[in-house]
């Protein structure tokens, strides 16, 4: 099967080259059969990469340890679902995964894009195929997943214990889907530039793709936080690690794009900016891949250091130069149709929102690269950890949170003083009341207080928007509040889905603020001994060490330490944290012992327990206990955000329906009649 896989990669490479050559020379414009050939090549590449993927999976499932990748990432006693996920657990397999998923997206783009964009599709095929060819060439020339060993090991090394977690079965694919799908909007943008069809057509064509990509990135990042929280054992979910940052960067610029593209759709402004943003987002996705795979910056999440980093660096530079040069050549064609009229307009609010999002992206990128810069300039190594990122990014993040509440309150074009008063009074009051309550409650952490007060303001904005919409429907159609609420969302999914996304973001911020109050303590306990901690919410926890038991599981020897927990004097239950020594099928240890944390999650706080080890081979155990406030809300915020995102991208109910209705209602007549909104 490896020969077949290898052969399939070569065929994909050659077909990809054909597709790229024909697409970019433009010969297809006069010859429909060539245009059809370009599009068919996309499907052919998909076929080849599916064959290569099946060949690798076959090797993994059949324990063909002669394949270096199979021997490095699986063992005979690895549970089947981890054998399945081993496909993307290592450098080489994940490159193939990337290529095949991009190929699926590229084919879906060709299949699903409406016919009115036919003029763009050969170029889209060319761009997507260029990226696929790059990934296939990295596999063929630097990191071949089908590379064979000179011998056949009796068993493989097995999967890194930290990857043996259900989160790792779904988190990397989600993140990859996000990263990879960015290529499609980028391809449409390049196609629009190449074809000089620079109206809003390309933006309509990519709307769903952009949302899909943003949604996958959001899910991937949230799942990554969850995985870090439950598996890495350090007690938090975000450490500003370079690889975490690398996933955050395209999310930020993509979020900026999702906002600024609305201005282009509605007002014909920011065309150049939007091309720049989507190109930047694509390049940041490649940059993230470079960071993860090059080993240029130390990270707990990186793949093993290898020479593929040079390939990615070269690709990054070439793609950046070509894309921005192309944009430069079309600069004159991208003049804005109208000019921004007022500082007090939704357009201006969106512009400032974009400024902040891109500013935060720059700040994160700057912090990620600052150790390298510092070494270049000063010759000394420095560490840039969470204290640096928090100090630089938290103020910017809070400004952004504030703008999340401001944007929806300001009218398009120009807001009047009366409009501002009417719109802001409730949200400002909500923020003010929250602030007062927090101060009365004795909260003094500056950033946490500001974050929660701003959260109150944003909640006021969202609540007001929903309330007014429901009230309007109730008045017009006599609908009950529940029906009006459902129809309000259903009839204008984009707007109200967006508000739900904002609610998700708001919940994230509240949860992040909670971590400012976390408590942690290390304790050494003999069986029967206890330690007490008080949570920020005032609950008293008592942890009593019950003992350590040892037993064998499928591919590991488990040492489980159990603690009885009481909360405010009442028994809350048992918590068991484990240390696992993974072994291969011959009972030989494969990795250093790993730790499985124990978590009791609640709406107020999580009790997080780590069994650090035993003292001198006895049952005397060393633990770390964390009381982490509001963590549950991070996951809930993620769910709300994804729910809102799905509503936003659900077919129908969008501007296509809204536009004619607005015309019918006599938008301009109303403007003149009331002189305001």
């Amino acid at each position, binding site marked *: 099967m490896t020969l077949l896989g290898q052969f399939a990669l070569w065929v994909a490479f050659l077909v990809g080259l054909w597709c790229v050559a024909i697409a970019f020379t433009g010969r297809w414009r006069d010859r429909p059969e060539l245009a059809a050939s370009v599009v068919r090549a996309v499907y052919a590449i998909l076929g080849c990469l599916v064959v290569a993927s099946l060949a690798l999976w076959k090797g993994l499932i059949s324990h063909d340890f002669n394949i270096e990748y199979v021997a490095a990432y699986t063992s005979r006693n690895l549970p089947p679902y981890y054998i399945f996920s081993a496909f993307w657990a290592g450098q080489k397999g994940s490159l193939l995964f990337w290529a095949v998923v991009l190929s699926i997206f590229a084919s879906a783009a060709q299949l699903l894009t409406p016919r009115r964009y036919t003029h763009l599709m050969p170029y889209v095929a060319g761009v997507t195929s260029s990226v696929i060819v790059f990934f296939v060439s990295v596999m063929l020339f630097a990191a071949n997943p089908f590379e064979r060993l000179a011998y056949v090991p009796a068993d493989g090394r097995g999967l890194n214990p930290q990857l043996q977690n259900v989160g790792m079965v779904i988190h990397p694919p989600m993140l990859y889907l996000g990263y990879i799908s960015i290529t499609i909007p980028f391809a449409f943008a390049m196609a629009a530039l190449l074809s000089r069809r620079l109206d809003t057509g390309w933006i309509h064509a990519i709307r769903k793709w952009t949302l899909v990509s943003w949604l996958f990135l959001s899910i991937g990042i949230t799942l990554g936080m969850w995985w870090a929280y439950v598996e890495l054992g350090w007690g938090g979910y975000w450490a500003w690690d370079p690889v975490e940052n690398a996933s955050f960067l395209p999310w930020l610029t993509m979020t900026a794009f999702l906002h600024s593209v609305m201005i282009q759709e509605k007002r014909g402004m920011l065309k150049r900016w939007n091309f720049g943003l989507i190109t930047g987002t694509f390049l940041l996705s490649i940059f993230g891949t470079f960071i993860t795979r090059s080993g240029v910056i130390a990270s707990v999440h990186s793949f093993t250091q290898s020479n593929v980093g040079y390939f990615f660096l070269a690709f990054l530079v070439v793609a950046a130069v070509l894309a921005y040069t192309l944009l430069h050549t079309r600069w004159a064609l991208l003049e804005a149709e109208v000019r921004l009229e007022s500082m007090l307009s939704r357009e201006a609010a969106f512009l400032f929102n974009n400024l902040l999002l891109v500013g935060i992206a720059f700040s994160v990128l700057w912090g990620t690269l600052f150790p390298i810069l510092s070494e270049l300039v000063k010759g000394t190594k420095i560490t840039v950890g969470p204290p640096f990122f928090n100090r630089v990014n938290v103020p910017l993040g809070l400004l952004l949170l504030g703008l999340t509440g401001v944007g929806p309150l300001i009218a398009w074009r120009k807001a009047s003083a009366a409009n501002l008063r009417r719109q802001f009074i409730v949200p400002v009051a909500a923020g003010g009341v929250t602030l007062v309550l927090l101060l009365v409650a004795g909260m003094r952490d500056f950033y946490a207080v500001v974050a929660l007060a701003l959260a109150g303001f944003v909640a006021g904005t969202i609540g007001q928007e929903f309330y007014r919409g429901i009230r309007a429907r109730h008045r017009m159609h006599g609908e009950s509040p529940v029906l009006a609420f459902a129809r309000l969302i259903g009839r204008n999914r984009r707007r109200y889905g967006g508000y739900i996304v904002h609610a998700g973001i708001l919940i994230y911020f509240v949860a992040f603020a909670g971590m400012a109050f976390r408590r*942690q303590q290390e304790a050494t306990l003999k*069986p029967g001994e206890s330690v007490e901690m008080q949570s920020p919410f005032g609950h008293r926890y008592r942890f009593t060490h019950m003992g350590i038991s040892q037993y064998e599981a499928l591919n590991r020897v488990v040492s489980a330490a159990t603690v009885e927990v009481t909360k405010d004097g009442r028994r809350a239950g048992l918590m068991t944290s484990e240390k696992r020594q993974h072994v291969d099928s011959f009972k030989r240890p494969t990795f250093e012992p790993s730790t499985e944390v124990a978590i009791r999650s609640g709406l107020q706080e999580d009790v997080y327990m780590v069994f650090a*080890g035993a003292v001198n*081979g006895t049952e005397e155990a060393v633990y770390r206990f964390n009381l982490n406030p509001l963590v549950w809300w991070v996951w809930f915020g993620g769910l709300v955000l994804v729910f809102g995102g799905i509503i936003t991208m659900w077919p129908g109910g969008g*501007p296509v329906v*809204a536009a004619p209705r607005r015309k019918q209602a006599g938008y301009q*007549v109303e403007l003149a009649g009331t002189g305001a909104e």
Partner: protein
Amino acid sequence: MPFAPIQTPLSRRAFLGSLAAIVPLGLGQQQDSLAGRGATGTLRDPTALGRSRQPTDTRENSAEIQAIELQLACNCGCTLDVFTCRTTDFSCTYSPALHREVLALRDQGKSAREILDAFVQKYGEKALMAPKPKGFNLWGYLLPGAAVATAGIALAAVLRRREAVQREPEVIPPVSASPDELDRLKAALTEVED
């Protein structure tokens, strides 16, 4: 013919195999578990837990020590601070050693600031989780905020200038509509407006 269970002779190898299956690993190293009774039993297989731990006392877990160690970077390549690493990555030998250094310096009566300075002197600036905000490092701290502020001010200035030179808005002739009609229109717009 009455039904009789099939008797198969058990080979010596099969017998030993089945015996091995019911006897836990490490015969002779049975766990002496007295869980919950205050005594400390010995573990059957201590090697399965990795490096043996030393008991920690209240002093080394004090908030003061924790606060110092949260500012010090572990140099094992984990990207974590000393406190988090030593209580998370139990195979790391660097963070426990750095922890002992912190305790030793504290025992010498050094303040938190002096301990951090001593680490910087010994290991260089990379010993800190965040570089000191001085010299070239100031760029690190100030550039993102300054860039955003400058761009924001520039953007605001451009918008203000445009506002100032804005032509009179196009006059749209008013229409005759009753207040009720305008109310309905407003409600409709609230519903459909993006």
